[in-house]
């Protein structure tokens, strides 16, 4: 084997490794689904408060979050069957998002019903957790723009902590759209491109 052949061999190894790693990329479906669910829950809560129909306040959250968890579990099961490979990075991401989801559900339901967390501060606390999840995800993906989304979540959390009130529903909804749904759609398009390639 000469130097030229060795170089070809090394570049072949790199190409195969790169091609294999591309399959790790998230398809963004969970980001879109959870983003839409939270926006629906926030907006329905807002309109319930504005129109004084607060008898069933909280029920909208219970129903929507339950739908989200059922969808997530079905999706995870389906993915486990479809994914023909597993990576350590993928396992870390799954663990980060699963634990964040549990933490947010506890804060949203147990925190508010126990009186430990005031309803108006649920959104900023959840934004802080989402900031951590995005920061770690970006780091694991090796994607700066995903990590940068955490700055948006943390800045939004700071704003909502200092400026509590009805506007929190709108701020949180806008953050969900710009820092979760739109990035999710972008990831979905990227994943589709990868499949075509």
């Amino acid at each position, binding site marked *: 084997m000469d130097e030229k052949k060795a170089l070809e061999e090394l570049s072949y*190894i790199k190409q195969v490794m790169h091609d294999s790693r591309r399959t790790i990329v998230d398809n963004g479906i969970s980001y879109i689904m959870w983003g839409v669910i939270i926006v629906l829950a926030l907006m329905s809560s807002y309109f319930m408060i504005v129109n004084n129909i607060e008898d069933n306040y909280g029920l909208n959250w219970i129903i929507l979050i339950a739908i989200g968890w059922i969808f997530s579990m079905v999706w995870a099961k389906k993915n486990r*069957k479809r994914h*023909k490979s597993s990576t350590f990075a993928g396992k870390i991401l799954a663990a980060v998002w699963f634990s964040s989801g549990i933490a947010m559900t506890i804060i949203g339901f147990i925190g508010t019903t126990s009186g430990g967390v005031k309803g108006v501060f649920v959104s900023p606390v959840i934004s802080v957790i989402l900031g951590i999840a995005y920061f770690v995800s970006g780091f694991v993906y090796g994607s700066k723009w995903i990590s940068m989304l955490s700055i948006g979540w943390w800045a939004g959390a700071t704003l909502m902590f200092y400026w509590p009130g009805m506007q929190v529903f709108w701020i949180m909804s806008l953050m969900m759209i710009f820092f979760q749904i739109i990035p999710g759609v972008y990831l979905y398009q990227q994943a589709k491109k990868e499949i075509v390639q």
Partner: protein
Amino acid sequence: MKNFDYHQLNDIIHSRIRLAIISVLITVDEAEFNFLKEKVKTTDGNLSVHLRKLEDAGYVDVKKEFVGRKPVSTYKLTEKGRKAFEIYVENLEKLIKGK
């Protein structure tokens, strides 16, 4: 390139298909047969033969199970395989640098 001993290149890894298999397995924890076939771009028979050679050398571990009624073989690189791959790449680099 005068001092490089070509025998330093591991014969088991020094084959396009086996090199590709190990290059894929090094990026994942484990991979199913079909995933490897898709990435290595070869036939079932060819892939099986090369995987068997890697298994015999102790470079990959195989786990066979049934998912539903379908038999699924999952492959994982062993520590010995990982080390052999690292040495192989190091040797290629030495060859390029002319050491």
